């Protein structure tokens, strides 16, 4: 500890004003403040004491909330791998090892590319490295299919960080959720690697898939064949319980609604994620799906029982981890109810009526990111109007 402090103090002058590496100060600062909370004290006037929280701790809390999804995702990648190869005897450890082998490089690439760009912009702009990417860097791998080519992860990360975030001014200024932008970029640029075929959702390691293994996601099957019977034909594989627990094919971290709920519990308990957005997101999806369910006729997707919608695909993951991103979400408490509800409702709407995009959550979140300021605008206008009304009453 003292050694680290001494080393930091020794090299510090080089990074300070007038030092040789002055320009790299933000990079030095990022490492120094990672090791030690700085000795900055409160300014002369105003609050002389400050809350123990800072952005680093807040972001770490979100990462901790994602760990259940990450670990389950790794296991599930291995699990699907052995299922596809017809090996039903593989142990828990075997599955975890295969999963880690597939998932960890994606995580490493996401962090390396994203943080690299963050550091570059911080140095160029001379501001400190914000911690926002710590969360984004974990979200990106979790919404990728296990077989995603590594170079695509790198390109998508770079695209999202630069175009969705840095051009707007960095952390706190972005309009769109950065991780969702990365996914959307790949979805439209390289659709063949992001949807549909069996080899996207299951890591085979080049071996042959046995007959009878589903391979596709529940959403994909329901959309493709336009019938719920298709799901039933896989027996209990796509049962509600299995979908809830998440041992089905899908993006790395999204399959388990259970793990997402554990994450939601952590976010809500710590107050880091808005419970209003999470609750209204699920309610919105359920209400929309129930509406379609009771309307007679229409397409077969409408016949899927509403509770299935909550556990299929990425809805749970998106509502819990993407919709609650405080920067791109609605900022007013009233607005958060509408924002979450519309994300859930739109997700189901897109799923049911747009077979080209069986995964609705991605577009729903991005769409509502764009509309969040509008929601806030109306909430704020209402507040202003209360004030104006009061003034008019006085004058009258």
């Amino acid at each position, binding site marked *: 500890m003292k050694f680290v402090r001494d080393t930091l103090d020794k090299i510090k002058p080089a990074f300070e004003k007038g030092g040789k590496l002055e320009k790299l100060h933000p990079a030095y600062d990022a490492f120094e*403040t990672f090791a030690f909370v700085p000795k900055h004290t409160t300014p002369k006037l105003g609050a002389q004491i400050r809350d123990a929280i800072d952005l680093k701790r807040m972001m770490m809390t979100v990462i901790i909330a994602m760990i259940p999804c990450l670990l389950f995702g790794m296991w599930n990648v291995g699990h699907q791998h052995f299922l596809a190869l017809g090996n039903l005897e593989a142990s828990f450890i075997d599955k975890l090892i295969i999963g880690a082998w597939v998932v960890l490089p994606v995580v490493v690439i996401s962090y390396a590319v994203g943080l690299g760009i963050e550091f570059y912009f911080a140095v160029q702009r001379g501001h400190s490295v914000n911690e926002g990417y710590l969360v984004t860097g974990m979200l990106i791998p979790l919404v990728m299919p296990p077989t995603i080519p590594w170079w695509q992860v790198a390109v998508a990360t770079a695209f999202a960080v630069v175009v969705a975030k840095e051009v707007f001014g960095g952390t*706190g200024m972005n309009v769109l959720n950065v991780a969702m932008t990365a996914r959307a970029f790949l979805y439209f640029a390289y659709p063949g690697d992001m949807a549909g075929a069996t080899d996207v959702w299951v890591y085979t390691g080049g071996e042959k898939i046995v007959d009878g293994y589903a391979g596709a996601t529940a959403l994909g099957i329901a959309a493709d064949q336009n019938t719920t019977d298709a799901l039933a034909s896989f027996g209990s594989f796509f049962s509600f319980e299995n979908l809830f627990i998440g041992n089905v094919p899908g993006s790395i971290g999204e399959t388990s609604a259970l793990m997402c709920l554990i994450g939601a519990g952590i976010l809500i308990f710590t107050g880091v994620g808005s419970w209003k957005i999470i609750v209204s997101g699920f309610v919105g999806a359920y209400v929309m799906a129930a509406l379609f369910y009771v309307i007679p006729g229409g397409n077969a997707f409408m016949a899927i029982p509403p509770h299935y919608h909550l556990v299929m695909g990425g809805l749970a993951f998106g509502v819990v981890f993407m919709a609650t991103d405080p920067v791109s979400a609605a900022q007013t408490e009233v607005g958060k109810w509408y924002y979450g509800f519309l994300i859930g409702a739109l997700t189901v709407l897109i799923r049911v009526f747009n077979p080209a995009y069986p995964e609705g959550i991605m577009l729903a979140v991005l769409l509502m990111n764009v509309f969040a300021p509008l929601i806030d605008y109306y909430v704020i206008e209402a507040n202003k109007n209360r004030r104006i009304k009061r003034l008019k009453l006085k004058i009258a």
Partner: protein
Amino acid sequence: MNLKLKKGFDINLAGKAKPELAGEIISEIYSFKPTDFNAITRPKVLVNEGDTVKAGTPIFRDKKNEQVHFCAPVSGEVVSITRGAKRFPEEFKILADKEIQYVEFPKYSESDITRLSKEEVLEAMLKSGVWPNLVERPFGLVPNPGNEPRDIFISAFDTHPLAPDYEFVFKGQEKYLQAGVTALQKLTKGRIHISIPSGNSSIFKSLTGVQIHEVSGMHPAGNVGVQIHHIAPISRGEHVWTTTPYGLQQIGRLFLDGRYDSSKVIALAGSEVIEPKYYEIRNGISIAKLVENKLKDTNSRIVSGNVLTGLKVSKEDIIGFNHNLISVIPEGDNYEFLGWILPTSKKLSFHRAFGLFSFLSPKKERVLNTNMNGEERAIVQSGVFEQVLPMDIYPVFLLKAILANDFEEMEALGIYEVLEEDFALCEFVDVSKMEIQRILREGIDALQEA
């Protein structure tokens, strides 16, 4: 009116003052600082170095608000007038007499005060030095006597950390408080509103001619701005005046005793004070005298006022004009290894993010230091300021309007209803570590000058 506030946050610091008056502290030198007041831009100095003054002799005036006289708190010789940029008089130092001489103002009996006219009350208050105990909202200024206030508000309790207990401080002073109220009644066609904590017996309940409101809730329930917001909010074009029981007491003494007597009972509190107690002082006493032999031998910070809105002072400084508390807390100028992630139950947090366990023991008294506990960042978190601000106001949007210098938006979002102290808790809980009170003051100043 019964007011139940649900939002807010109590900060329970160690080192509260024992309800015990430890005596009077006397200093050789007393000072007056025009910088204790907002928006004084055209100062006029009324004395020269070497002049002798009495307690109540005018020493300074603001040409923008000419009728208001700022007066010497003690009698003695003006030994120095320190000037800053543009020759702005920053500090008047007075070498005090052993026995304080007072300027003689007319004395009245309690019933006489009722018969005074508005003009007589104004005249007495403006000349004698008690006037700056009043604060005008919006903007938090020394009131302009020409702006008749819609109402006058007084909060009779202070919910800030370590704040003095008014029930203790003003016990036995009811006569002066009542005289102060009676005088203030002449200045407004509206009401005198006094807020007290609900449920307790209070010496303020015995005051007549006032509207009593019982308020319950966590800090900032005791902030007069929050009370005004719920009782009768300030709209554009309106003026509301506020004062404290300290102000009432001084106004009362002016009319009953005929003097500007600036003595008051303040608390010296905080974890770094050996025996936190109450002391009697006069305005402008030096900090060095005040804390002499009373502090622990630690690396500490002396704050004039409370730890949420106060001013860091050195021993050469004085207690602020409107301050009734000196808080002494540990200075936090040390590094903390991995302090941003290690679990802690010692440090206080409004949040419950990973590793912050203070929510498990909300009642516990804490020793908090002045470390920022993090670095300044972009605004990321939303919805937290609203939980500690019991007002129908969107603080983040208001702050953004200020940063964008958008006057119309500031007005529409309710800047007239707030002063820095109301946003102090937002500054405390802020994840992004912004200087929220400074930003708000900049907005208020910009709007006031516009």
